[in-house]
């Protein structure tokens, strides 16, 4: 069974569209994250939730809105997509703060 699963794996869309990425973990972890990896492989945290509560909200445009319906799920909704949003988005979870992360396989977002 996949520990952290995210869908879709690939997302190709036009500028201005709205899209969502879903993430689910079956590890029983309390903490979930969204990371963005750019073309130079920099991996930067975007959001972190602990027990459905938003804890970390880095300097991310408010077009990005995370939603955690329960502690096993953390979805990412992006409004009005821009070219610069093209990247790989990773969902991850951990048992606690600063502990090892379990990553999903990533969503390659391409905005045309």
């Amino acid at each position, binding site marked *: 069974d996949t520990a952290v699963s995210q869908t879709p794996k690939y997302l190709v869309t036009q500028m201005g569209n709205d899209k969502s990425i879903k993430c689910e973990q079956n590890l029983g972890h309390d903490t979930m994250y969204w990371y963005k990896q750019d073309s130079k492989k920099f991996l930067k945290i975007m959001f972190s939730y602990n027990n459905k509560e938003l804890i970390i909200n880095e300097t991310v445009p408010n077009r990005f809105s995370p939603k955690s319906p329960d502690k096993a799920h953390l979805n990412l909704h992006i409004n009005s997509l821009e070219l610069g949003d093209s990247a790989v988005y990773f969902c991850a979870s951990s048992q606690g*703060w600063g502990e090892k992360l379990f990553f999903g396989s990533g969503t390659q977002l391409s905005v045309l």
Partner: protein
Amino acid sequence: SQQGEEDPQALSIQEGENATMNCSYKTSINNLQWYRQNSGRGLVHLILIRSNEREKHSGRLRVTLDTSKKSSSLLITASRAADTASYFCATGGFQGAQKLVFGQGTRLTINP
């Protein structure tokens, strides 16, 4: 700004040789972690070393931590073609912020 910086950015060696990658960071940490990322995949946790530890082993991996120099190294012994991947260090728990901050990674290529 990025907390961890890996060195070198790219490393190419022959199968069977040892590979050493370094990571430097700027501020106090609670722990430092190493991850591996195969092309097109998510990151996989390798080792976590805490600030009060100096060395840790896991199979063919050896990690050292020097908090006085704010640096860590990852040694892979007897490298194999399957070790070809990008390797990232991540620092946790610095400045009271409970999040992992990743470096840009070292791209390791093992030539058969």
